[in-house]
């Protein structure tokens, strides 16, 4: 017999391929999926191009970005010992977005290879390091959130400023894109750009899972359990920056996934911050893929930004948190 937590996790795991199929059949144009599959990768028929060049990379990007955000959120909450931490809330996403904006609009072209994600990761790392230093070691929830809000607001303002002066006719709209994120018109090029960095970040975070476990006892106890020095926090920060920064560089800042998903997953893994990492990655991937299916099917080419959809899902979750806290449950 599976325990309820494991059962739900197994269900999530099984749901992912189903959601992927749902994503592949969703779109404004009806496509004969079987024919497109059998025609294969290199076919020039429009069905095959739509499947292989448009829908598949977009769906895989949703999975990848969702996994990065979910895992980044879980790692952030684990490292800061705070269930309110989130990559976007603490400025990671806006740091990455600001760096990407500076590069894209003032610097080199879109396909400038590794430079874009690398710079976005650098921006994310700087932002989260700023928050971390501003809040101080072992900071309380309120101080952390305060520092995060301050850094985040400042970076968002810089983003708007940078886009305002960018040599582009679409400044306002571009700001909306970077603040709410989008997966529209993405292809293999963006996916391949993000994959290595997200995988690298994921591996770093996975290697730090025992540190995150030890940290649930506090920094002193974690140090006495052998997780001493700057190595481990730097590893986690770099992992978060790498995964989330690369995701932001190709999809903009998509909020709430990193906050909501670890919350939902924590009871399923018996609050273990180590197992929370991969289960949050799984659930984040599923959540973002479902959100994108919603975007494609119900909003169509108008492209309601995916960040708005995740916020739609995230906000009721907070209502639920408040209600359950008022009923006297643990947050």
């Amino acid at each position, binding site marked *: 017999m599976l325990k309820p937590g494991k059962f739900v996790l197994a269900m999530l795991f099984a749901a992912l391929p189903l959601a992927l199929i749902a994503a592949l059949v969703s779109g404004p144009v009806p496509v004969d999926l079987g024919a497109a599959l059998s025609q294969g990768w290199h076919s020039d028929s429009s069905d095959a191009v739509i499947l292989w060049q*448009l*829908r598949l990379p977009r769906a895989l990007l949703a999975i990848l970005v969702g996994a990065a955000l979910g895992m980044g959120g879980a790692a952030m909450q684990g490292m800061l010992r705070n269930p309110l931490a989130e990559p976007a809330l603490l400025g990671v996403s806006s740091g990455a977005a600001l760096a990407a904006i500076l590069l*894209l609009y003032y610097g080199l*072209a879109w396909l400038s290879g590794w430079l874009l994600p690398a710079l976005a990761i650098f921006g994310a790392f700087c932002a989260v390091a700023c928050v971390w230093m501003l809040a101080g070691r072992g900071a309380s929830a309120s101080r952390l959130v305060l520092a995060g809000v301050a850094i985040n607001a400042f970076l968002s303002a810089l983003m708007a400023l940078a886009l305002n002066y960018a040599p582009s006719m679409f400044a306002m709209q571009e700001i909306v894109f970077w603040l709410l994120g989008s997966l529209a*018109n993405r292809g293999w090029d963006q996916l391949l750009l993000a994959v290595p960095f997200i995988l690298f970040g994921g591996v770093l975070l996975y290697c730090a899972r025992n540190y995150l476990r030890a940290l649930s006892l506090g920094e002193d106890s974690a140090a006495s359990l052998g997780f001493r020095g700057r190595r481990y926090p730097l590893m986690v920060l770099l992992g978060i920056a790498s995964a989330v920064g690369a995701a932001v560089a190709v999809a903009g800042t998509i909020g709430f996934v990193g906050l909501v998903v670890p919350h939902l997953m924590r009871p399923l893994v018996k609050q273990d911050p180590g197992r929370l990492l991969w289960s949050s990655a799984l659930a984040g991937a599923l959540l973002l893929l479902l959100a994108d299916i919603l975007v494609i099917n119900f909003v169509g080419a108008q492209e309601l930004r995916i960040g708005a959809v995740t916020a739609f899902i995230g906000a009721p979750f907070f209502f639920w948190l408040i209600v359950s806290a008022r009923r006297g449950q643990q947050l």
Partner: protein
Amino acid sequence: MEECRAAARQIAGMSVSVKKLFLLSLLLLPLPAAAYERIASLNLCLDQILLNWVAPEKIASVTWLSANEHYRSAPLPEQVHLNRGRAEELLRLQPDLILVGQFGAQRAARRLRDLGLNVVAIPDAYSLEQLRDQLGALENTLGQLQPLQKQKQQLDKLLAAPMPPAQASALILSANNITYGDGMLEHQLLERAGFRNLAAKQGVKQLGRVSLEEVIAAQPDLLVFYGGEKDFAVAHLAARHPALKNYIDSGRTYTLPAELGFCPALVAADVLQQLTDKRKSFVEAR
């Protein structure tokens, strides 16, 4: 994008007639309405017409938007004042002709007219017919400018030719996945060049959205982009998608110049010619 174009069409300019041209026209043609020496414009499109077609020393003022290289193809003369569409700025410059568009800066235009200045409204052009009217109005005001004449004759000739049968299909993919349907100048140009605009066929009136999937599924012979993509913008991502690589590699694309969006008078004739050539090459290739 649309805001920019609207703004572009709204600011009006002024007129000049070069001395040489004036003498020439004395010999060849009826007298121009006047030989203006200090022309001002309150409209972005009229700015561009002045800068491109009129001698620089005769331009007194253009709008501040024309300082932006994004809109300007001709050099900006040094003495030109950049106005923000306020009556008092222009009053001080004492222009002998003020060009305004159909929309925008209307309050300033009325005030200047009340003060006894020579304000001429030039109609905007959203279709080929309106474009001809616009060029006629410009001719009446500015006189027989050579480039203007040339543009007008070229356009007249192309319009006088019988409408060619649609021999190939085309689809416009502009920034933000916008496409142009029935009732747009861009649509008229495609049809005149012998293309079937697939967006109009699918019932798009004026502007519509088209996803990349729909572009691929529609399989147009010619994929038409809109210009102004020198700089990065997420809005242009669709046009850079690898799924369109086939079109780019096989030369089945055409890029409309950005000017077509805010001042078609400058480029419409050339665009029509190029599109016609493109269509002919497709037909020959078959």
